[in-house]
């Protein structure tokens, strides 16, 4: 059977630097789903930190670089909601006035997908998820509100899911917010962690590494039993890699 889907993986800076296991899991899932996966080398950062800090100049430069590195592929898949949303929603806006790239930005937006959304809605792929341990899902705000990612990861994780209360309330990461407004960010993390723990589940899956690192770090500081993994790792059956911020066995 010939694979008709050529996918470029846009790794995202956090996954690239801090959690390669999530990227390898994403590659495995895409290949198992029947895709040919390329990882364009000219990718670094989608430019969101610059964009959200008000630095449109650098954000545009990074957007241009990203667009050029991805524009030739059929699909672009991103293991992170906020970066996928940056490409899909904010690139066209940011580059609307750029005669050379406005069209390319719009085109790229049309073929960029968050990982679980792509697997579920485009590839209709459901991996066999082993294990019976309960999982609670950490929705990321940009994934949820900018990309309507809510049902897709849950459909793929199946009956292991237990819902946490007020799941649509922000965890307090917010990019640079988490270090600029530390006390508020930490208070928001604590509220979220208490609600995650109240489900009785130990395993927390999420699609955005920033949120996961922020909560895993706070949970570790509070000596909580919760374990945080990228949803790609769970779907790909990776149970060897230590959870985020967890000790190596």
């Amino acid at each position: 059977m010939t694979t008709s889907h050529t996918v470029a993986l846009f790794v995202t800076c956090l996954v690239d630097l801090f959690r390669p296991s999530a990227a390898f899991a994403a590659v495995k899932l895409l290949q198992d789903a029947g895709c040919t996966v390329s990882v364009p080398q000219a990718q670094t950062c989608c430019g969101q930190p610059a964009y959200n800090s008000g630095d449109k100049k650098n954000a545009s430069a990074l957007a241009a670089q990203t667009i050029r590195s991805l524009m030739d592929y059929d699909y672009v898949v991103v293991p992170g909601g906020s970066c996928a949303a940056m490409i899909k929603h904010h690139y066209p806006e940011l580059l609307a006035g750029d005669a050379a790239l406005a069209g390319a930005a719009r085109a790229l937006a049309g073929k960029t997908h968050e990982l679980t959304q792509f697997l579920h809605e485009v590839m209709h792929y459901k991996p066999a998820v082993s294990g019976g341990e309960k999982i609670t899902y950490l929705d990321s705000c940009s994934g949820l509100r900018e990309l309507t990612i809510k049902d897709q990861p849950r459909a793929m994780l199946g009956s292991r899911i237990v819902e946490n209360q007020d799941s649509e309330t922000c965890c307090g990461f917010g990019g640079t917010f988490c270090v600029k407004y530390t006390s508020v960010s930490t208070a928001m993390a604590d509220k979220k962690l208490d609600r995650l723990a109240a489900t009785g589940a130990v395993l927390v899956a999420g699609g955005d590494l920033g949120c996961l690192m922020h909560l895993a770090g706070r949970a570790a500081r509070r000596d909580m039993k919760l374990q945080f993994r990228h949803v790609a790792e769970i779907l790909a059956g990776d149970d060897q890699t230590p959870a985020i911020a967890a000790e190596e066995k």
Partner: protein
Amino acid sequence: MQRHPAAFNANAAEALLDADLQAALGAAEAGFGVKRRKAIQGLPEFEALCDQAAAIKDHVLDHLDVYLQRFEAQVFAAGGMVHWCEDAQQAREVILKICRSVNAKTVTKGKSMVAEEVGLNPFLEAHNIRPIETDLGEYIIQLAEEPPSHIIGPALHKTKDQVSDLFHAHHAPLGFTERQSSGEALVGEARAILRQKYLVADVGVTGANFLIAETGSTVIVTNEGNGDMTQIFPRVHIVIASIEKIVPTLEDAATLLRVLARSATGQEMSVYTTFSTGPKRRGDADGPEQFHVVLLDNGRSAMLGGAQRDMLRCIRCGACMNNCPVYMAAGGHAYGATYMGPMGAVLTPNLEGVKRAQALPFASTFCGKCETVCPVRIPLPKLMRELRSAAHMARLTPARERLWLALWSWVAQRPELYHRLGGAGMRILAMLARGKGRFGWLPLAGGWTGTRDFPAPQGENFMAQWARGEKDTP
């Protein structure tokens, strides 16, 4: 708490340690969410109505000068007067002039955020005129000598015990010697005291949720009836409102009213929605003899021409702050300004300047909940981002932050260098973590590690591994 937006971080830290405040905010957060969800369930057309409400406001803004002319003409036709004020000082002086013209000693006030914005109360007091807040929440904070912490529930930050103490201290000299602890008794005490004030006041000042161009009417929305008592009994009724409150017709007002109460408190309609048009008519059984509308610009006309124009659609429902996790952690006083929460984070830099208020639009995770619940579709995160951009371009943001950002962006635009540095850096960090998986402390990462452990990287970064072909691809 410092009354300055730049102190947001310090104010918020203080707020988080205030157990009473956190209890009050927790109760509010739970209550608002439930009520709004229930109300929206009961109106399937809600989202469509919000789209129409936004369109009505947009239309008005595009023809604001003409609508204001029409409104003014209708107020005149009904026997009222209109006063135009470019800024807060003009508004204060106009109101003082009207009060003096009738030798006013006491002025009852319905809740008005615009009156708060122009600093009306201290100004009247300085001129020997006593303003008396009648909205229970405003009355409470008037006694406490604090500003409002929420645009709908000004005393949201107070616990019942705190209100008991306040009333006991201030009402005892008036003959209420026993400290009341039940909410019902406290309300009853306030009612008894304020009742007298309504009937002897010379002037009543209200705000306006809407100004109806078709009829020259001002509209207020309350649950208590205090705004009504304020404007029926005194000889003079003054309405203070900002210019963007115009709504074309009664039909348009109906659409906006449908989304207002639902968004604010989850009610079908507020208990009292009142349309006031001019002074009493000849032969009327009661009503004021004079009707004045004080129209305030104070920066709105300038907003109309720029990237922040959409903020002028705001109908002051408070839904954004009710649903904002930052507001619900820090409370309204942390913002150090008249307006708070997401709408305050946008409006304050516009009214007070980016230099003074830039901390507010940065105090957001851009979770987007505010935009989701705004009944007039204001893209609050986008507006905040624009304000961040204005701060950045004017080099108002901290130099250290700009430096790190510039460095990151510079390296990120050089993929080979980025991957090499990233690979080396992550390998080193992974080694330093020594299998523990995290750092309790890292140099230059104090903002993170002060309260969180920092997850260690796994080793060399993914891009470098991929480039070396460590994993086979078919």
